[in-house]
């Protein structure tokens, strides 16, 4: 697992992984307009990192992604989502205060990017949470099972 796969896989991975990440971010960003959303986009981004892990082995992510940083980011994403849910507590938990407000995400035309109120923000929070969560599960499990081989 450490050495990774053949040169073909490595080269193709170098070409596509940035594209996959970009597509994932696109899916998260347009979650309230087109099919997709935080979960789907987050999973797409995580799949890019999974590809890198498979192609290059765990060495491929060394220095790029720190496990502790990932976990902190995941907690930040979760807290941000909870915070956004708390934002509407003046009326009710999860009340969408930004929708139709005319402010940042409060445009009243549903077809533009800056609409949907809290929806785009929640999409980003959940997207961050899902991608870091899945990548950390992957990394932990790969490192864990490698230790097993050593034992």
């Amino acid at each position, binding site marked *: 697992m450490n050495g990774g796969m053949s040169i073909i896989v490595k080269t193709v991975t170098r070409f596509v992984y940035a594209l996959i990440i970009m597509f994932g971010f696109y899916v998260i960003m347009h979650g309230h307009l087109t099919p997709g959303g935080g979960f789907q986009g987050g999973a797409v981004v995580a799949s890019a990192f999974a590809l890198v892990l498979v192609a290059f082995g765990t060495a491929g992510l060394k220095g790029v992604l720190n496990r502790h940083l990932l976990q902190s980011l995941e907690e930040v994403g979760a807290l941000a989502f909870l915070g956004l849910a708390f934002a509407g507590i003046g009326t009710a938990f999860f009340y969408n205060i930004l929708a*139709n407000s005319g402010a940042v995400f409060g445009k009243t035309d549903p077809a533009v990017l800056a609409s949907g109120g809290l929806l785009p923000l929640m999409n980003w929070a959940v997207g961050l949470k899902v991608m870091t969560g899945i990548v950390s599960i992957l990394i932990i499990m790969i490192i864990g099972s490698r230790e097993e081989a050593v034992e």
Partner: protein
Amino acid sequence: MKRALTVAAFLLVAAFLVVAATTMRPFGEPSHTEMDDYFLANCQTEVVANNVVTAVVFDYRGFDTLGEATVLFAAVVGVLALFRTVREDER
């Protein structure tokens, strides 16, 4: 004995599921759609989102999504806890 019971339970559940699938309301013709029609009709004005599914996921049923994020968080914490480094003296 135990195996016979397992087989019986399996056959019972299987029969239940097939009966439920065949006696359900006809496929493609839901009879009570008030809730979903409300989402389809009002999501563009209330939530101002074109994607009704996202509006349901994050607004009308946002609390489920928080629970779902919590489930994922719990799984990550659980996997972390399993693969943590355990000190020798606590075994």
